[in-house]
Structures are given as structure tokens and as C-alpha cells.
């Protein structure tokens, strides 16, 4: 491969990785925006989303690659079912583990979230066993450049790449519409800015928080499904690492800032793909964490956020 082909290939890899990170990062940023909690278990909801989607495919009897009309019926159905399941899971976690601690110190729910994260990982370990799980090739993989355009190139773009982009963009557009144009979205933004005032204006704050966890969980579920179909593999420990990278993305975009989280996700995706290629995959984690630390220390408002004064 020529150097520019490597670069293009890794950038495409980065885009698909980044799309998944972005979907997870949105869940972190929404929850942090509304209750100032680093929802440590969120990455594990993503991981469970992958396994849950696997179960939905199995329940629907899908074992082979989907073809033709199945792509427009079964696939959206599995998206919906998976997203509903992880959304319900996320809401349940909030109700049981975080809600009783709404009025306590900032660190108590964070510690609880770490506890929940360990529980979810252990559940997945016991459910699926310690070894990586193969995810069936449900989505057709077609080499676009060669098969559709007849171009002979070392660069490899498949219909799966299209799937990632084609699923992520509508989700984000939908989310943006929901948050900026609907009554519920308005309630979420108001609660994020000032919970007490929102309450005084007649907004049911607890229901708004529930909604936030619901939407965040749904996005994590979608990300899990996309991840599974794209990489055809799932591990019980993948939520921790993906979660931390997505959290880094959220911090990079300014935590609480939703477009920032999406862009941050893409950035981390590119960065990790390039780092794998040009530095060494062994150092990518260290690089991502170094970025996380540097941003938190020197620009905690994120690359896009504005500095806000703490109240005294």
C-alpha cells in the first residue's frame, strides 16, 4: 500500500470507530449535563447492548446474512428492540443505584457507578463466558470500490462502513431534533442548566432525568449493535475501554455539550486509528488517557466549551 492509501484507510477506520465512540459519548455527556454524574457504568451498557442485540437476532431466528427486504424490516426492528432494552436497563440502573443519592455528595454516586459497572461486567462474564464471542455476519459485506465501481484499489470500503455512517447520522439528527425542538428536550435543557429553577417552572425533574437515562441507554444500545455487526466480535471487558475512550471524547468536546461529544467521538476515533498505525497499538490507550488528563487539567471546559465560574 502506498502511504496515502494507508492514511485514507486508517481515516476510514477512524471514522467508523469514532461514530461508535460518539454514540456512547452522547450518553455520558447528557447524564453529566443533567445530574453532574460520571456514569461509569455507561460503557458497560454499550457492551451489554452488543450481547442483547445478539439475543434479539437469535430470538428472531436470524443466523445468516440478511438480504433484500430483511434489511429494511428485521434490521430496524432489532435496532428498536435493542435500544429499548438498553434504555430500560439504563433507567433501571438510575432508579436503583443513583436516584437515592441525588442529594448526597458528588463522589457517592460516582463510587456507586463504579460498583454497578463491575456488576454489569461480571454479569456479562457469567452470561457469555470469558472468551470473546463471535457475532454472526448479519450485515452483508460488499467491497464497494471493486464491486460497485470496478476500481482496483488497496483501499477497502465496504457496505458495513456505510451502515455505521447510515445508522449514526439519523440517530444524531433525531437526537438533535428531540433536544432542540420538542417539549421534552426543552425540559432536559432547562433541567441541565438549573435544576431548582426548572422545578419551580413546573418541570418534573425526576421524569426528565429518567428520560435522559432512557435516551442515553438507547444510544449506547445502538452503538453496541453497530459495533457487533461491524467487528463481528464481542468481549465482556470491552465496555470499560470503550467507555473510557467515549468519556474522553465527551470531555474533549466539553462535558454537557452534545455536538461537542459527537465531534470528540470522531476525533478520538481518528486519533486511535492513526495511533494504531503510526505509533503502535500498544501505546494507543496511554495516548488517549494522556489526552484525557491533559484536557481535564488544562481545559476542563473542553475544546469547545466556555469557561464557567464556580459559584461561591
Amino acid at each position, binding site marked *: 500500500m502506498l502511504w496515502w492509501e494507508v492514511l485514507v484507510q486508517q481515516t476510514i477506520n477512524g471514522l467508523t470507530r469514532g461514530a461508535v465512540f460518539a454514540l456512547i459519548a452522547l450518553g455520558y455527556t447528557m447524564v453529566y449535563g443533567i445530574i*453532574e454524574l*460520571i456514569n461509569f457504568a455507561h460503557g458497560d451498557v454499550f457492551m451489554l447492548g452488543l450481547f442483547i442485540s445478539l439475543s434479539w437476532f437469535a430470538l428472531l431466528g436470524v443466523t445468516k446474512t440478511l438480504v433484500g427486504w430483511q434489511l429494511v424490516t428485521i434490521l430496524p426492528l432489532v435496532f428498536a428492540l435493542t435500544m429499548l432494552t438498553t434504555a430500560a436497563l439504563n433507567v433501571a440502573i438510575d432508579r436503583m*443505584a443513583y436516584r*437515592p*443519592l441525588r442529594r*448526597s455528595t*458528588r*463522589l*457517592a*454516586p*460516582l*463510587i*456507586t457507578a*463504579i*460498583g*454497578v*459497572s*463491575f*456488576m*454489569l*461486567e*461480571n*454479569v456479562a*462474564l*457469567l452470561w457469555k463466558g470469558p472468551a470473546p464471542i463471535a457475532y454472526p455476519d448479519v450485515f452483508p459485506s460488499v467491497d464497494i470500490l471493486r464491486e460497485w465501481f470496478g476500481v482496483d484499489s488497496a483501499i477497502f470500503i465496504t457496505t458495513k462502513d456505510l451502515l455505521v455512517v447510515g445508522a449514526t447520522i439519523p440517530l444524531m439528527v433525531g437526537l438533535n431534533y428531540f433536544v432542540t425542538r420538542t417539549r421534552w428536550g426543552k425540559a432536559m435543557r432547562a433541567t441541565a442548566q438549573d435544576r431548582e429553577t426548572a422545578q419551580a417552572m413546573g418541570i418534573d425533574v425526576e421524569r426528565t432525568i429518567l428520560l435522559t437515562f432512557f435516551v442515553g441507554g438507547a444510544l449506547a444500545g445502538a452503538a453496541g449493535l453497530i459495533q457487533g455487526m461491524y467487528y463481528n466480535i464481542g468481549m465482556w471487558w470491552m465496555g*470499560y475501554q470503550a467507555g*473510557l475512550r467515549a*468519556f474522553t471524547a465527551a*470531555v474533549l468536546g466539553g462535558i454537557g455539550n452534545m455536538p461537542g461529544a459527537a465531534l470528540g467521538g470522531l476525533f478520538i476515533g481518528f486519533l486511535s486509528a492513526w495511533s494504531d498505525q503510526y505509533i*503502535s497499538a*500498544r*501505546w494507543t*490507550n*496511554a495516548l488517549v*488517557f*494522556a489526552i*484525557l*488528563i491533559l484536557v*481535564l*487539567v488544562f481545559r*476542563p471546559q473542553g475544546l469547545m466549551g466556555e469557561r464557567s*465560574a464556580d459559584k*461561591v
Partner: protein
Amino acid sequence: MRRGLGWTALVAALLVYPFADRVLGFQTVHAVSDGMIYVLLALGLNIVVGYAGLLDLGYAAFFAIGAYAMGLLNSPLVGSPFYGHAWSFWLCIWIAAAVSALLGVAIGAPTLRVRGDYLAIITLGFGEIIPVAIRNLGDITIELGSWRPVERLNLTGGENGVNPIGRPHFPGVPFETDPVPWYFLILVIGAASLWAMNRLRDSRLGRAWMAIREDETAADCTGVNPVSTKLLAFALGASFSGFAGSVYAAKLQAITPGAFEFQVSIMLLCMVVLGGAGSLKGVILGGMLITLFDRVALAQTTFFVRWVGRTIGAPALVAADLTLWRWFFFGLGLALVMLLRPEGLAGRRMRPIPIGDDADAPASAPAPRVEAIPGWLRDRMRGGGNFGTEPILEIHGLTKRFGGIVALNEVDLIVPRGAIVGLIGPNGAGKTTLFNVVTGLIRPEGGRITFEGARLGGLRPNAIVARGIARTFQSIRLFPQMTVLENVLVGEHCRLAASVAGAVLRPRAVVSEEARARERGRELLAFVGLGGKEDDVARNLPYGDQRRLEIARALATEPRLILLDEPTAGMNPRETATLTALIGTLRRELALSVLLIEHDMEVVMGVSDRITVLDYGTRIAEGTPAEIQRHPRVIEAYLGTGYELERHA
């Protein structure tokens, strides 16, 4: 007497245990020693999490640093240019602690200004980077085109770790073959650490840690330097894990990066949180319970469940392996403790705030008596400047903007020495902002603040307290979980000198300083009317007492100027009268200068020598109370036209 007996029994049990174990053939000494290392680690983490309130999710990194310091310096084998000469264990253990402490400072210094939950994530990131780095530094190749300056350099042993590691040598003690000397070595290190931690807790430094944990801003404004205090917590916490890591490495004879992953940090956090963050006994208890659970209970319960399964013929139970649930139970434990008993098993149970308790308490505290003013406070205050003529605080052209809002607009203000100056104005006029600027909490865009002839610009709040300016807060900001006396002692922090070594070793100078500080604290509390409540937890005090305690804490910093932010807010008329009398007494007897924000016109007009009125960040009037009451702009903006009538109604 009984306590002494208990201690003797405990020490005897600890001393006899390994020999009893040998006689009975249990062979548990190894496991118990390992458990003790983890308890020592948890105790070190407790300094950071329990005392200073900084959530550290990457503590295992310091453990790793300690272990690798020992491993790399004391391993006779690994083929790298850095080692090959095995150093003595007894030297390495100190080097390991020092390296860990240094690293704690290096990590802490840039990161400690960030908020608590961000700090937690930063430590987590650091905890992730260290094992990655250890793994990768076992095989370094730098490739720049065809030039390879470094090829396959092995610094850390990579995934395989370091193995073997030299054991300690001590004449006549068989560290090579016998687990018992290890047990005693760890016991001695653990006991010494415990002794040091216990002394640290009850020292000037320990109180500063807890003050930071309770309310960092209030601690800063009471004279505690948050950055250096937190750094000390990081460094000391890390050094204990350096000890633990180095002993662990030498005992195990082999270390791999896998032993220092995130899970280890979380297990240690479990120990601290379960037992009760901040309580030494609690952390030991938590450490023992978790070690026992992890090493013994899970395996034994599995045996039991399988036996039950075989007996009743349930194949699901026969195949059960509870050890696979290990992390589930740790996670569950963390969540349950936080939800059900956040103070931990042995932590101080928080009493609910008494409601309607004011009825039982004396209706109001006694009026302050002049003769009750502590002599030392008189001595400190006396002298220095001309009473009433020269200014103690001068503010010129002070400007502060928040975005587009001008909170302070070219404000001038002078507090003469020994005077009471009132600061009034409608809500949002910028009064509290002025306090925050003077005490260094926020930086102004322009203007000059001079205290006793010296500029205050750019000083941190604690440095300003040390210069002699103390404050109280509009919404009371005590250290709620600390006792009344401890609150006042934090106020004395900047006037005390004990260092870390002094706090642990307690030379005579430190002991007498501490005794004097406590005596002063008691006198001060008696003076403000809180005598006899020294050992109450601050949050349980009735409202009026909390206000007085905040003033006592401010006075303990030995200020020459005190800023009081609505001291009578929420008080009943009798409490208000007592407090007004107290302010008058302080000025009259101690020549203490006072800058007072107050909405109660009765108080402000009665006690102030001069009054400054702010409106929308601008000074609209300045003068004596009588002048202010007649000032047309003040009446228009703040007092209202009916004020004169109302007052005489």
C-alpha cells in the same frame, strides 16, 4: 484499664499467631501476610480518600511503582543497562517509598486544582497508563525510517515482569525459607505506619486534610493552603503504598504488570469505603473482611453450595463457582455501602440534624462578657497603628465583570483601623462579590486593594488570611462533620507551625503548641458562648450557634480585619441583639476592624461608624449612618421612601 487489657491481648495474639499456626499446621501465615500488605495499602489510600476526601481511582499505580522500584533495583537477573547490581532490600524499601511519594507529587501538582470527580478520572487515567507503560517498556524499539536508535531495549521485563527479586538479608533470620519472618516484618511496618497515621490524623495537618474534605473554599478562607495540603496527602498516601509495594515484590519474588490493574485500585477502594473512609479501625476492618471474603469465603461457600447441590441432586448447584462472581460482589458491595451506609461499617454514624431542638436549648446564648475575652487574643490584637485614624483597608477603583454584567464598577472603600464599616445595598448590588475579591476568591479586572499598607493583588485566600483578614459566609460554611473545637483549631492552622515530621514524632515544641492551641480554642468558644459544646459535631449545632462558631473560627485566625457577611441573617431578635453586642465588644476591646454586610437596618445603623451603599456594582453613597438615612439616592435605591416612617412606627 479494660482498654489496656484489650490491647495486650491483641498484641499477644498477633505475636503468638504464626507459631500457633505452625503447631496446628494450618499454613495460613503466607496468606495472612499478603492480606496485611493489602490492608497497609488500604490505609495509605485512606489518607487520600478518607482524610483529604480526594477520590483516587488509580492508587494501584503507586503500588506498582513501589514494587517495580524494588524489583528493578534488587533483582540479580534482568538484562538491562540499569540493573544487575542487586541493592540491599533495606535500602530499596526507602527508595521505593521516596520514588512513590515523588511520583505522587508529580501527578498531584498539576491536577489538584481540578474538581473532585475530574480528579478521580485523572487518577484513573494515570492508573491505566502505568501498567501500559510497564508492559511496553519491556521491549522498546524506536524506528525513524531506517534509523533505529533504540532496538529491543528491555527496561521493565514487559509482560513477563521481573523475576526473581532478591530477599532481605538479616543476620540469623531465614527470610529465604520461612514465612514467619515475613509476617513479622510486615507486622512491624504495618504497626509503624498505623502509629504514624494515627498521629497524623490528630495533628495540624490531619485537621487541614479534613477541612479540605469538608469544604475546600471555606478551608482556603480559613488559612489552609489547599494545594500544598492535598499534595501532602498524595505524597504520604503514595509513600505508604511504596513501602507496601516493595515488600510485596520481595515477598512474592516476582512481579508482573497484571498485578497492578484497575481492579486492584477498586478492591482497595472497597476496603476503605466498606470500613469507613477516614477511620483507621474501619479501614483495617474493611481490609480484613474483603481479604477474608476474597480468599476464603467465596471458595468455602462454593464448596458448600456444591455439597448442597449434590445432596439435593441439583446439577446447577454442583457446577456453581462463586469465585467467578468475585467482581460482582465487589461492585455490589460498593453500591450497597454507598446507598445504605455511606459512612462505612465503623464510620461515625451521622445523627440526623435535630429539628425543633432550639426549644430545649437556652433561648439564646449569654451576652458576651468583656472579661471573657481570651487574654492571648488581647495580646495579639494590641498595638499596631493609630486607632481610628489611619486606614487598615483601602480599596480603589475596584472593578469586576461576570461576562457582560459589571458586578463591581470602580468601587472605592476605606475601612479605618478599629472601625466598623457597614456595606449595604439591594440584592445583587455586588456586596458579596466585593468580599470575594478582597479575600482572594475571585480576581478583579481592575483596581487596587491595600491592607495595612501592602497590596493584596494576586494572593490566594489562605495567604490573605495569614496577612490578617478573616471572613464569614452568607450561607454558613462550617466543616460540618468536624467537632466544634476542631473547627476553631482549623482557624488557628495558619498560626501554628507543626510540620509532617513534627506531627508524627511529636517533639516537645509540637506537643506544647498543640496544647496551647486547644486551650486557646476553648477560651475562644467560651467567649462567644459555645463553652461546653467543644466536642459536638458542628452540623448538629442549632443555627445561631453555627453562626457564632463561624465567627469564633474567623477570630482564631487572629485577624485585624474581619469581614462579616450577613451575620444576623435568619436569627431571632434576641440572638441578633447578642451578636450585635459581640461585634461591638470585639471592636471596643480588641480594636478589631469590621466590614459588615447586613440587611437588618437596626443592626447596621446602630453599630457602624460609617456606611457604604452599593447599587448595581456602583458606590452610590458613603457616610455616617445618619447621613445615609437621609441620602436621597439611598432612599430611592434601597431603603424605600417609607423607611423613616416604618422605623418609627
